């Protein structure tokens, strides 16, 4: 019946099964769903592209600057996280503020990028190659809004001294989520560079 079971496992029923905070775990599962949405969109992109009749245009360089900004915000977010872990409240606040500013800068930049696309006569309505670009970057921005709200919440808690080494769960989740959104954009950007 259970002969093949690891004996050690059976002998220690009293070890804690709980390995990760359930909320953190749930966040990872949420991240999986977001990955699936973008996996679907980028696969659809490739499938559609291979059918031909595909408008080719230069990606605006603003996208590159935005990518750099977003990566920088990921770095400051992490510095804020480290500061929180060390109960260094001054740094925590400073880095959270910088992260927020960079995040907002990214939004502004993406808006500029859309403007640059319009200048190139690439519209949301038209050849799917343009529409896909708008949908992918737009949906990413939409998720980023949720990330920004999360950052703002953490920023306020930081100012109320509610983020400290003994209360890191939400800060960890915020950091994880922001790194994820950042990584997601880097993936999308490289994907678009290679396949536009």
């Amino acid at each position, binding site marked *: *019946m*259970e*002969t*093949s*079971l690891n*004996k050690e*496992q*059976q*002998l220690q*029923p*009293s070890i804690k*099964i*709980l*390995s*990760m*905070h*359930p*909320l953190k*775990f*749930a966040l990872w*599962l*949420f991240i*999986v*769903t*977001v990955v*699936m*949405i973008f*996996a*679907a*969109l980028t696969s*659809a992109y490739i*499938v*559609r592209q291979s*059918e031909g*009749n*595909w*408008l080719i245009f230069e990606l605006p360089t603003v996208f590159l600057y935005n990518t750099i900004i977003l990566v920088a915000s990921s770095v400051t977010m992490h510095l804020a996280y480290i500061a929180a872990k060390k109960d260094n409240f001054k740094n925590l606040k400073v880095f959270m503020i910088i992260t927020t500013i960079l995040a907002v800068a990214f939004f502004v930049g993406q808006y500029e990028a859309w403007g640059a696309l319009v200048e190139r006569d690439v519209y*949301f*309505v*038209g*050849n*799917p190659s343009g*529409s*896909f670009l708008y*949908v992918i970057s737009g*949906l990413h921005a939409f998720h980023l809004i949720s990330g920004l709200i999360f950052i703002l919440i953490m920023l306020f808690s930081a100012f109320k001294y509610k983020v400290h080494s003994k209360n890191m*769960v*939400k800060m960890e989740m915020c950091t994880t989520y922001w790194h994820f959104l950042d990584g997601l954009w880097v993936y999308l950007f490289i994907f678009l560079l290679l396949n536009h």
Partner: protein
Amino acid sequence: MSTAAEVNIDQDVHHDEHHDYEQSFISKYIFTTDHKMIGKQFLITGIMWGLIGVGMSVIFRLQLGFPEMDLGWLRPLLGGWISEQGKLDPEFYLALVTMHGTIMVFFVLTAGLSGTFSNYLIPLQIGARDMASGFMNMLSYWFFFLSSVVMMASIFIETGPAAGGWVVYPPLSALPQAIQGSGLGMTLWLVAMVFFIVSMLLGGINYITTVINLRTEGMSFSRLPLTIWAFFLTAVIGLLSFPVLFAAALLLVFDRSFGTSFYLSDIYIGGEALPNMGGSPILYQHLFWFLGHPEVYIVLLPALGITSEVIATNSRKPIFGYKAMIGSMLGITVLSFVVWAHHMFVSGLNPFLGSVFMFLTLIIAIPSAVKVFNYLTTLWKGNIIFTPATLFSIGLVSFFISGGLTGIFLGNSVIDIQLHDTYFVVAHFHLVMGSLSIFGLLAGVYHWFPKMFGRMMDEKLGHIHFWMTFIGVYMIFFPMHYIGIAGFPRRYYSWTNFDAFSSYTDLNMFVSVAAFVTVAAQFIFLFNFFYSMYRGKRAPQNPWRSNTLEWTAPIEPGHGNWPGEIPKVYRWPYDYSKPGAKEDFIPQHIPLSHTPESNLDHEVELAKKEVVDKTANAQSNA
């Protein structure tokens, strides 16, 4: 509101042990965070949707079986959809079929089945006080409710509900000018489905987190009841596939409302060319079926999990091949993501790709066959106790065989050219998906009713319900195979214009009558369900003499499930008729050291090292 507060961060903190304060009606029955009540909410809503979905099938069976009939008497219900001559409006027929499919697949067999039993059973069977996040769980139900309201509203609008089939293929669904149903009805369909997806994802995230993080001590993955394995894998499939449906729906929304051309190209309406250029409707099919096929298993797996539990309990035998059952469910989970194009053999798919998908599709037959084999061997020479739940489970296995066999034909890309979009397909999926899962649902209700409501359902009525439904299902769907082989297409309002099909008039009439009788039999169930809820015999602690943990909780468990400590688990859940044992079952919470008479060699070793505390001793007599 902070969700963190909702989470049982540490399962050893019995913060809700003494829950004897009065809960208000609203927090107890409506905005409840108790997984048991949420499960019941899903069940009741699912049953209500089931009635509506089945009611629709009665209307189109009337049309198909008795095309000449005067349906004027339906006018109070359907109003303008019945013409002056007492005929059903052809477009409304399509709308009914679409709603029937959508309701049955998503609202009844996804939300009603997995929503009910995952919610109800996961915490009770793994020994947890509640779901990981009661708040998210509550949101999950209320998103489903919102989705239900929108879908329901779409049925009553002037242009009628969506009518492009439950798969809502563009361009039909993307062009409001195509048919009435592609107007507002389609918009509402999409809105409802977005809420539905949100609901399922919230639920799924919760189920997975709960199973992984909140199992009681000793409940290793190799001791999990197969029900929990099934619910767990169902949630995993949903988590990976529903986002893809979301992406597909999003692009469809843009095509419909913003003028993009993801799915549209070169379309002429009334001689006028539409501006849309460069889209591909096949793209939608790929995205849809990437959800659509796994969805079949989302509907199937919970039913199979329930069956494993019911069959083992009522054969009084350990489930045959526990590990093989888990392995085949894992196999099905993985394979379900790589077979989607078998729905697209005739869409102009590259024939080479077609062969690849055919090959992968046929491989799924292996884990499925393993499961059937294990059910049969579990039943074989068992001391079978024929409760209504057992009967429905055995019926389920029969549909798995009869409906699964036709899948082998449909999975062949060449044979599918003839059979695609005929009643053969309708027959196939009604047996293997529709009836199988409905039987799983019914088996689950009969089996866990005593736990849910503290009372027993009537056995006699259950038996009558079973036999009428079981025979009825074969009477309805078996003849459809022949109609399908003859080439009769699905989603057709009428075939009276085709001479070739006139020889099937009687058969269609027969099918319709069988459907009416079968539907009537469901009222026996409804009566039994609601009557027993209030007047049924009081349930004993463990009515089926079953091993799983839910039967150690009080007959009507309160919030938090166990008033004292959560029982620990010392063995797998299938110790039925163990040689040497005093009783023919040994529940999971009985330590090995208490059953020296029946321990196997390696268990003797384990028993020596077992750490058993006093409370477990006290509970072992429960």
